[in-house]
């Protein structure tokens, strides 16, 4: 069965000019997101997760490559066309303290996109819609005239979600939406996002550094390292049969609450290298225990190793059949 593709990127690149050359924030990313699904993007700070989200929404102009929305190449859209397009795509940011205007009431904040996109003619219609949205995300009506500073992080994030939903988008980039929240509140917001997806058929790109959260919410997961997508598969394949050495190490490093079984940690040597003017070859090679000469001289292609399981590693087949393993010491 072929799922309907909503978002597709082709050789997408975003380089930022810096004094020393170019910072390769997003480098040659090919991915697809199907309608109604969630693609989780994980990676460490500085790996280009957020930039990827923004380039897909065209909040940053891509250096090269295409972003297709429902088959349309949005990088060629005029400003007018793009404004129309933005009704379909929204973003939820990490910090609910910084993304709400402190001088506007909750009602005004949620209403603003409706005014901008001129969706309703009268103030009454808009008010009714705002109340409907507040109900949808679980905000009490008395909040309508309150200000953001009266709210804690969890309720602010509900306001941000209501605002994003106000114009009926199909696609939402969630950029670390629960990272600033405590676990008990984080669970409330994750449940809300999943409920809304079910009710409204939303498509999410969910960016997070927290792998357990990503596993909980995603259909597919993409792992990024230094601007490149190095592995992408269904969440079960990523967690049960990871093919990239970095993914394997990343998964083993998650602290587990299971006190009965001590998991074996793979402690990687060194740290993420600089994304400025990266050298030829696999970018993980410097930290990878399996690196060969080929890894430092030739770029690994992002290939479909198994159905719907993509990986960029020269030695994935040896990892898949078990001949390459991390030392269990």
């Amino acid at each position, binding site marked *: 069965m072929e799922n309907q593709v909503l978002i597709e990127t082709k050789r997408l690149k975003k380089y930022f000019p810096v004094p020393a050359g170019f910072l390769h924030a997003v480098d040659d990313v090919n991915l697809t997101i199907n309608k109604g699904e969630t693609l989780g993007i994980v990676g460490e700070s500085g790996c280009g997760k957020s930039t990827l989200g923004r380039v897909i929404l065209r909040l940053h102009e891509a250096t090269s490559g295409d972003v297709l929305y429902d088959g349309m190449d949005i990088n060629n859209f005029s400003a007018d066309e793009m404004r129309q397009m933005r009704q379909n795509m929204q973003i939820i940011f990490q910090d609910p303290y910084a993304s709400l205007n402190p001088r506007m009431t909750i009602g005004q904040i949620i209403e603003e996109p409706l005014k901008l996109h001129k969706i309703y003619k009268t103030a009454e219609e808009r008010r009714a819609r705002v109340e409907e949205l507040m109900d949808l995300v679980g905000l009490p009506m008395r909040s309508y005239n309150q200000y953001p500073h009266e709210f804690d992080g969890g309720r602010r994030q509900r306001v941000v979600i209501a605002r994003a939903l106000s114009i009926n988008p199909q696609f939402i980039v969630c950029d670390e939406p629960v990272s600033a929240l405590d*676990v008990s509140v984080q669970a409330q917001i994750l449940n809300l996002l999943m409920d809304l997806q079910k009710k409204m058929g939303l498509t999410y790109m969910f960016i997070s550094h927290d792998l357990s959260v990503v*596993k909980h919410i995603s259909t597919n997961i993409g792992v990024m390292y230094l601007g490149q997508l190095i592995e992408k598969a269904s969440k079960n394949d990523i967690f049960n049969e990871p093919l990239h050495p970095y993914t394997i190490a*990343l998964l083993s490093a998650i602290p587990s609450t*299971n006190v009965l079984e001590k998991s074996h940690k793979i402690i990687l040597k060194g740290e993420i290298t600089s994304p400025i003017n990266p050298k030829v070859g696999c970018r993980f090679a410097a930290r990878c225990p399996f690196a060969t000469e080929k890894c430092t001289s030739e770029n690994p292609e992002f290939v479909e190793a198994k159905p719907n399981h993509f990986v960029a590693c020269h030695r994935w087949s040896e990892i898949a059949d078990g001949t390459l393993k991390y030392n269990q010491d």
Partner: protein
Amino acid sequence: MDKNVVLDVKNLHVHYVTDDATAKAVNGIDFQVREGEALGLVGETGAGKTTTALSIMQLIPDPPGMIVDGEIYFEGKNVILNTDKENQAMRGNGVAMIFQDPMTALNPVMTVGDQLSEVVLNHEKVSKAEAKQRVIDLLEIVGVKSDRYDDYPHQFSGGQKQRVIIAMSLLCNPKLLIADEPTTALDVTIQAQVLDIINQLREQYKMAMVLITHDLGVVAETCDNVAIMYAGQIVEAGTVREVYLNPKHPYTRGLFDSIPKLDDDSTELIPIEGAISNAADLPTGCYFHPRCRYCQDICKTQQPTVKGDHHKFMCHFDLFSKEEEK
């Protein structure tokens, strides 16, 4: 008293007093840490974890902070009665602290080597050359190359800075290390490296540790005992095994139900409704009652007492005792 007890906190109350309100940050907590033992202090924002740590270090900003009641014994001596001079001798020497944010804990206009040697020179009568050697040795242990001695903090990455800070806290062989969210600002692969170093050093130096964190996974992997804090109280405490396998307080249960499990993806998350109470306006009765799904009338009016012998919890009811028998 048990000879091995390094830290003994008794009935500690800390308030922040302003003209408008009194925020009751810590409301009567008791715990002990023995030699070589690690205690995890877990709780959400505003639970009073950091205030507890600062009280032990005698670093509560005063005003507005005040230790209004209780005792803190470090090696048998009540530090609350210490003079400033005694406190200075204790800090860095007997008790050391690692702060959450490695980016702001170092002086940006001093080389890393100079700031670390300064610690040794302040506390011990050694020559500059000896101090430098000790710093270089310890930097090697935590995995920072000695040729970085003359570098400035901005030349280090986050993980490297946290290693420098760990080295700094260990320079005078402290008996007790207080680590306040030492890995929260770090990526998971770097976090694994740093926790590995802390565990090795703790074993090597037989150091006691209080680890403050909101991450239950980090505690499971580094600590012997755990105390769960809510609204300035310890609502449950015991060994990591006891508390993780058989949580007895509804709040502890709620925390475990709120985190997505990696080895089990069918389960739905069960959040704790509402948010933590304002410390300046705590509810009557049990502080957790407005968010508790098992709340009864007694919970609204009466504070529960601490139940249990070793595995302690603070709830009117023993709600989950039946499960235990199974």
